[in-house]
């Protein structure tokens, strides 16, 4: 029994010695989670290139390819929680909706815009811009159903509401910006 107890002491002592101790103190530079990093720059660079690519396609009259290029921006991987991601995607949606609008794909354009508005986590000038494009789509719909006065009126009212929503966001954000300066 005495030997068993001695063995237990040895085991427990060994465990104490092998326990993970604190790492030696080392000096680390702060790496805040919201600092601009390489991943953010890469994502922004890709978005920039897709926009320019779409611009080249548009200058060449290839709207379908331009639309495909802008759609690529929506699936770019940004660092988690980067506010730029939402802004860049909403701006791409605004351009995409306008391209689809020009192609007469009003429902698809509206879908792109409403998805962007619904998925936004905060109010921004880019969200306001989406409401502006939404107003344009309603205007286009109103023009399409001009023969049906009731539908046309409803679309026009929807367009006015969208523009008002855009203005309201712009006003609120501009006020905040002025106060913060």
């Amino acid at each position, binding site marked *: 029994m005495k030997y068993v107890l001695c063995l237990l002491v040895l085991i427990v002592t060994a465990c104490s010695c092998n326990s993970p101790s604190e790492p030696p103190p080392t000096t680390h530079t702060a790496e805040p989670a919201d600092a*601009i990093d390489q991943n953010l720059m890469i994502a922004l660079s890709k978005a920039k290139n897709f926009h320019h690519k779409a611009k080249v396609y548009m200058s060449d009259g290839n709207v379908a390819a331009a639309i495909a290029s802008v759609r690529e921006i929506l699936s770019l991987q940004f660092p988690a929680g980067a506010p730029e991601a939402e802004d860049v995607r909403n701006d791409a949606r605004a*351009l995409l909706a306008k391209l689809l609008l020009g192609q007469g794909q009003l429902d698809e354009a509206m879908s792109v815009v409403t998805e962007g508005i619904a998925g936004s986590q905060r109010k921004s000038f880019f969200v306001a811009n989406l409401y502006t494009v939404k107003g344009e789509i309603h205007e286009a719909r109103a023009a399409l159903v001009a023969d049906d006065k009731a539908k046309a009126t409803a679309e026009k009212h929807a367009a006015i509401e969208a523009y008002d929503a855009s203005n309201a966001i712009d006003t609120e954000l501009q006020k905040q910006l002025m106060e913060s300066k």
Partner: protein
Amino acid sequence: MSQNDDNDFLTGPVPEPDAEPTAAERAHAKTFADLVDKTLAGRTPPAMSADDRALLEMATVIRAASGKVSLPEATQRSLVEDALRQAVGGAGAKDVVPITRGRTRRWAPWAIATTSTLVAAAAVIALVVRTPARPAAPGAAAAALPTEWTSRPADSLFGPISHDRAGDASTRIDTIFADRLDGYRERELGRRVK
């Protein structure tokens, strides 16, 4: 002592085993019994015959061997300690541990082992349950970071987007990229200078 045949062990006649004891034998036995009783009572007669002395010593040994005679405890302990002292030699005789103290010494390793186990267990528990040193909160570090170096909303770069520039995302992404690149370069260069 009388010089009858009973006392002549060498040349006297040997009685039959089943023969009745004679009166002389009874008297002799009675005398010897008294002698044994006196000796056990500590009143040994100063003089006796050699035969009686031999018989008396034999009787004493037999009685002691039967376990009916025991020494006082102090005497026993003294005898054992003397024997141990002689066993370990004269020089170290003083180091012989008395029986009572030996009992304590027998428990000492157990006590030491138990204490060591408890101390080691306490150390393990302390290692497990102690609060780890917390790294600096990211928010604290971010607070010290210049705004230009941080990822943030791009609203302040543009302000409200006019209706006629609603689809000018290409220009805006150029602005955003350029602004963030400036901050990223400043931060990276600043870290390398340090």
